[in-house]
């Protein structure tokens, strides 16, 4: 049995126009959207101009509820009762997104506004040896603190990442008897205040004379803080590796160790890199442990065991409360540098994480 089509009844495929039938909205829809946007904004503008109520209060107490009501009415007008709940959720979602964006932008904005005057090329590589808080901004920089921070974070990464990943492997791959206890300890460790980590290293490492204050001791303190973040995140990503891959490898006559190192970890590579990034992000701004374990100096120190070393957080701490505007500007500029440093690390990690093969 065959069905034949009349050539005339077929749609003219060659002359088809691109269309978006689902986008067609009735005029009342456009009108109500405009009204629901304009009316609350107009009322808020009037309230803000006509009264002394601060802007933030106007936005949260007047604008936000007003917008919800207006959107609710508009939704009711166009879609009926069921549209109201929808519109309230959408307004809340957009509001929450805007709120967090505003916070983020104002943080970055205030860093730029207050720090830009101190920012210059020499600020990035010079050290602080012949600079006092009252020295003009043409001299001095935080090169020594950038090097110190990188050194300390590098040391803590070298210590915390292998231990953290090994802990995650114990929990997800070895699945030994002690798993509940190990997990409990890792979780408790995440609750250790950073100043306690610094004090711990100060008493155990520095006060006993094992090592002096410096990059190594600071790195140890950071490692204590970094370890639980790395271990927990790595555990989560290893759990996401399909069980099929493990049994597949074992069925090929692989040992447990080879399965972990040649199949499971490569499959979780992007996730492990994320774990490392999160660990670094967790510690890089911590000040208290470095004040105790690493100290602070004005000169450039490259030897991890060579005595007190500068770092960006301690530099900010030392300068931000001084009664000299230039010192305060330097502190803000350093905070900006720290932020950019973290951003660079994130981008690098993403690039390395992508790798040769697209791992799904």
């Amino acid at each position, binding site marked *: 049995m065959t069905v034949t089509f009349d050539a005339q009844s077929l749609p003219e495929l060659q002359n088809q126009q691109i269309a978006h039938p689902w986008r067609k909205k009735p005029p009342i829809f456009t009108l109500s959207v405009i009204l629901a946007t304009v009316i609350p904004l107009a009322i808020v503008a009037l309230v803000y101009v006509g009264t002394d109520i601060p802007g933030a209060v106007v936005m949260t107490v007047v604008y936000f509820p007003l917008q919800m009501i207006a959107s609710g009415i508009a939704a009711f007008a166009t879609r009926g009762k069921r549209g109201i709940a929808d519109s309230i959720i959408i307004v809340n979602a957009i509001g929450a997104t805007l709120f967090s964006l505003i916070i983020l932008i104002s943080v970055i904005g205030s860093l730029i506004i207050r720090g830009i005057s101190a920012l210059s090329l020499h600020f990035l590589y010079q050290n602080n040896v012949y600079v006092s808080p009252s020295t003009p901004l043409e001299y001095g920089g935080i090169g020594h603190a950038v090097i110190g921070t990188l050194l300390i974070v590098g040391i803590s990464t070298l210590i915390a990442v292998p231990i953290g990943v090994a802990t995650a492997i114990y929990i997800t791959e070895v*699945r030994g008897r002690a798993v509940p206890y190990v997990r409990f300890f890792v979780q408790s460790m995440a609750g250790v205040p950073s100043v306690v980590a610094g004090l711990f290293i100060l008493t155990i490492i520095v006060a006993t004379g094992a090592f002096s204050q410096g990059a190594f001791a600071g790195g140890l303190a950071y490692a204590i803080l970094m370890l639980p973040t790395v271990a927990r995140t790595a555990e989560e990503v290893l759990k996401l590796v*399909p069980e099929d891959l493990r049994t597949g490898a074992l069925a090929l006559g692989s040992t447990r160790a080879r399965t972990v190192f040649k199949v499971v970890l490569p*499959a979780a*590579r992007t996730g492990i890199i994320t774990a490392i990034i999160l660990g670094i992000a967790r510690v890089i701004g911590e000040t208290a442990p470095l004040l105790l374990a690493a100290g602070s100096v004005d000169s450039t120190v490259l030897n991890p065991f060579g005595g007190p070393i500068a770092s960006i957080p301690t530099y900010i701490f030392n300068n931000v409360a001084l009664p000299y505007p230039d010192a305060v500007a330097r502190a803000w500029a350093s905070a900006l540098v720290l932020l950019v440093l973290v951003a660079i690390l994130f981008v690098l990690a993403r690039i390395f994480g992508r790798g040769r093969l697209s791992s799904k």
Partner: protein
Amino acid sequence: MEMIDVENAEGIEVLETQMEKAQSSAPTEIEMSSRELSVWFGKRKVLEGVNIDFPKKSVTALIGPSGCGKSTFIRTLNRLHELIPGAALAGSVLYEGRDIYDRDVDPVQIRLKIGMVFQKPNPFPSMTIRGNVLSGLKLSGMKRSNHDDIVEETLTAAGLWTEVKDRLGAAAGELSGGQAQRLVIARALAVQPHVLLMDEPCSALDPASTLKIEETIRELSKDVTIIIVTHNMQQAVRVSDYTAFFLAAENEPGHVVEQGLTTEIFGNPQDQRTLDYVNGRFG
């Protein structure tokens, strides 16, 4: 109508060659066998008293309704069962004249000789196509020279060579489901197993890929002993020399109802339940 006739004719032909093979090679040499094998998950007994002999270089199909313990059974044959927490087992699995569950047997060595292909294709996503084929050598530490030859040989045996020979360096994730499953078969073959276990290897595949894999199975059975779990009765008829029918009553462990030559099980079953099952009256 013509199509169906051709299919039937082919089916009969396959059955005939199987019968010839079965008769000519008697008495058959046994590659491996299970003896009074019972399996538990925690306190729940899922298999009871399974005795099956797997003749060398033949295909044995394990059939039966869902939940009767076929997949569990096949996983006891290369000691993958014990990886599941709470798993337990009694009885023995004999291979090369000894029980693979003996205290001094290394499960890694067993799995090297008794390979497995799973229900869902599981190529290693972090490796290339070539890397996947050779992964068994890398993972087991087995030394074999001439990797290029191995890649071509095993991919040809798995019926994938012509499709991938120009992109061996591509990521394994780019392959379709059917191709990935054949890649996994090639991967299993690269370590030269004596036995290949297949747990519903075609259940996630389209008919064309299924046909290709069935051809591969027939071809492989010249060199390797194959044990295949399948839900597809036509598939069991098409590919297997021997069949074992598993069944589990409600809340009772599964057991083997009937086993023997595939031609017998499908053509002249002795048990009423087997007759009903192979004729599609339940399950």
